[in-house]
């Protein structure tokens, strides 16, 4: 049971990271980014294809991360250039279309669930320590530390640096941000590049445990969006906590035989309960009228 929760914590760290990337993209460039996990998977598969071809992992890693960042930048450029003046719904719809296209291309290039499983490097597989039957792998700590680092780091950058303030201004009032001289398109592109690079690293972290096929990794966006909802698409600490809670619940449900087969429903049960809790004081007519 404890082992399952700890395994869940490993996933939790990764879920938190993915949720953080979704929340950041939404907050900073106002796009619900459905392509994120698929972009990270593309970068990860560029890396693993290189290592399969005999390239050293130390060389393949930066190339893979750069590929993820470049692809993310290209998608970001499409959204900034052609859909910059459109509403969030349109941008979300465009990102869904791009997600479908990316998944199709990825499956074509890297194979499906049954044919495309690659062997990803497992640098963090060794246990940090074990007490009795409980084993804590390095990957659990690495993903947790990475998630905490990103939450704290982003908070610091947003509130303590000039670039962070400009990013906040851009997310709050894009048109006025440009009026005061903020180079909005360039800044948005930087956000897309960073999100692409970080997502590639996160996907590389989780790929060995999930079987290493493109389809499974690309579809991690479902969980990422669920975690982002836990953070209300706004709060970074809540997103971090949400990812960890979701991971632990998933681990717990894997350990209890009676609910094992309903494991996939866990994120959505959490979301439903949370949405109900948040809206408990709302009056339907005023809260949901258009």
């Amino acid at each position, binding site marked *: 049971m404890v082992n399952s929760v700890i395994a869940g914590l490993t996933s939790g760290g990764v879920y938190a990271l993915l949720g953080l990337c979704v929340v950041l993209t939404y907050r900073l460039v106002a796009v619900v980014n459905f392509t994120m996990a698929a972009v990270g998977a593309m970068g990860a598969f560029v890396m693993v294809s290189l290592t399969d071809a005999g390239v050293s992992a130390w060389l393949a890693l930066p190339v893979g991360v750069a590929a993820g960042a470049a692809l993310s930048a290209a998608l970001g450029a499409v959204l900034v250039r052609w859909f910059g003046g459109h509403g969030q719904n349109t941008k979300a719809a465009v990102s869904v279309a791009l997600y479908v296209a990316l998944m199709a291309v990825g499956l074509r290039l890297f194979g499906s669930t049954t044919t495309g499983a690659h062997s990803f490097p497992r640098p963090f597989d060794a246990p940090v320590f074990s007490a009795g039957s409980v084993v804590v792998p390095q990957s659990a700590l690495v993903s947790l530390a990475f998630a905490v680092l990103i939450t704290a780091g982003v908070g610091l950058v947003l509130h303590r640096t000039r670039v962070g303030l*400009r990013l*906040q*201004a851009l997310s*709050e009032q894009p*048109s*006025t941000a*440009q009026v*005061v*001289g903020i180079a909005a398109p360039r800044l948005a592109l930087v956000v897309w590049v960073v999100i692409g690079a970080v997502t590639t690293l996160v996907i590389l972290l989780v790929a060995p445990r999930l079987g290493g096929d493109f389809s499974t990794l690309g579809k991690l966006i479902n969980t990422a969006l669920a975690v982002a909802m836990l953070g209300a698409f706004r709060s970074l600490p809540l997103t971090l906590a949400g990812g960890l809670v979701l991971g632990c619940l998933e681990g717990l449900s894997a350990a209890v035989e009676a609910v094992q087969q309903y494991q996939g429903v866990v994120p959505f049960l959490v979301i439903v309960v949370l949405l109900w809790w948040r809206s408990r004081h709302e009056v339907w007519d005023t809260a949901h009228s258009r």
Partner: protein
Amino acid sequence: MSVPALSLKDVSIKRADVPVVHGVSLDVEPASVTVLLGANGAGKTTLMDGIAGLARTGGGTVELDGHRVDKLPTYRRAQAGLAYVEQARTVFRTLTVEQNLLVSQTGDRGPEAAYRLFPELDKRRTLQAGSLSGGEQQMLVLGRALVSGPQTVLIDEMSAGLAPVVVRRLMRAVTDLVELGIAVLLIEQFAHLALEIGSRAYVLRKGRVAFEGACADLRDDSARLHAAYFGTAQPHGGPGPADRPRPDAAESERP
């Protein structure tokens, strides 16, 4: 003759494919206030948006200090020395007063310059801008324009919804900007207040320049001002351009 700080030649602008501004030419001289008047719907705000790059100009040229900027995106025009005080008190509500100022700072002129212009803001520097009163928010937007180090400032209806005493305070601040060598293009509902501090005036009617001349000419001749606004002589007791803020006008303090 010196190069105008801002010069428009034959500028036309459409909004949603509807022509709003037709062939407008105007000059704003350095270190002076140029007043842009006109009835509601005359195209004043659209013209300002076109100068700032928020609306696309369909024809003509916009020059800042002799350099064409009409093909540049909004932020490049701002970096070229154009500040725009929009109509709706556009503070960044979640940022503090100081952070609002830091966001637009480009050169040596820091938040202290804005605090010298409006000492009221100094006491509020750590407050979120969204919690300020309407008047303080407008001061912050003017202060933010100042710290961006502009040569030209566009100001659109900064008095909307504010108490008379605040409007006069803001008008004094506009003359302070001029003393710093900044050129101002001012849209103002209270025509006479604007004409008191302005040197040159343009009146727009249906998107075209209907009057161009010295502010003094309009200030002293309300019939002429009315004719420029509406193209007809002033009917007895009829509606006209707003004169001065009524002393009993309530200030909108909605944060």
